């Protein structure tokens, strides 16, 4: 997996409730509920932690092989990026500043 970074969009609202992470896009009110693995990805999406490192965390905490974890992470990130919930970059967070600026 190439080095990529994800950052939570500022145009979201999130809340951990009863062990489930709830996320809503404030732009179009789309609502998502995340399972445990997805919650881990969401919480790690600080723009500085690479996807590679996130996959390692998942493999450490859940009973899943690395190949499967990489596929799941890519699928999840693609889906949330399409809704503008996550921002994806090949560089760490500082390079996402223009993307964030464009959102405002």
């Amino acid at each position, binding site marked *: 997996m190439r080095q990529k970074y994800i950052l939570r969009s500022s145009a979201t*609202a999130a*809340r951990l*409730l*009863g062990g489930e992470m709830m996320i*809503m896009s*404030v732009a179009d*009110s789309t*609502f998502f509920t995340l399972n445990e693995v997805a919650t881990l990805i969401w919480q790690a999406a600080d723009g500085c932690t690479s996807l590679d490192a996130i996959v390692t965390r998942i493999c450490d905490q859940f009973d899943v092989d690395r190949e499967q974890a990489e596929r799941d992470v890519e699928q999840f990130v693609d889906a949330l990026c399409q809704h503008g919930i996550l921002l994806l970059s090949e560089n760490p967070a500082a390079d996402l500043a223009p993307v964030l600026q464009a959102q405002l």
Partner: protein
Amino acid sequence: MRDCSGLDPVKNMGSFAMSRGTSTAIAGVTIEIAGMPIRLETQDASFRRMLKQRYGPFVNESAKPGFHFDIHLLQKPGKLRADDDLQVRMQAGRWLLRRGDFKAEWDSVAGRGRILQAPGRYAIDSVLRIIHTLIQASRGGFLLHAASAIRDHRAFLFSGVSGAGKTTISRLAPPDVTLLTDEISYLGKDRCGYRACGTPFAGELDRIGENVSAPVAALFFLAKGPKNRIDAVGKAEAIRLLLRNILFFAEDADLVRLVFQSACEFVDQVPVHRLTFYPDQRVWQYIGRISEDAA
């Protein structure tokens, strides 16, 4: 949006900085919903009479209003359409509210606003509802598509889309139940939790709610069925359903975020169930038993 009678309130309604002599009595009616008095001022005596009649138990002339609105009535209501798209947005520190039958602007900090509207109750009803949603968004409360009623000092909410049974369950309420509304419930938040307050916003029942409030005991999402049953609703599903039924109109990311947090907070504090009911009086016995068990 089409301009109303060629008068653009943004350009022509003047500044909120305008002052009136404090000694001058301004004709108006103070409407207090959920302990939030709003003064509606108008020179039109027949409109004031309509307001007093329409809002009945919610008129409170002794309350000190936190918000004032000047109302100007349009004289060509035939051109106005209440079903035009609604716009609610903040511009230059003021809320702008626009629909086919009204335009309003409101400086929430100064507590003053102006409404340019068609005569009659529908436009002012809508403006009041929107103003209350904006007020509550920053206070942790919200307005909800739901019937609500008080029994044994506790409030029960019955939410759902049109046809789900809000009016039916209100109509079936026994005499010891105090009806708060059959259409739009008002949820305020205080230090003790959520309170349901009566509103004058009625649905098909066409009966104004009682101007009282009580702590919320439970929220039921309604569906009609062949027999009465109650099912648990998970928190995620409860939030999804709640968000679908909360009244909120503003195009404002910060307030949307607050409303989301309020919905989460509510679901965290209040039991939420799905109530499938057969429309006869037995449903209230059933609700009574369930709520006693829960208590």
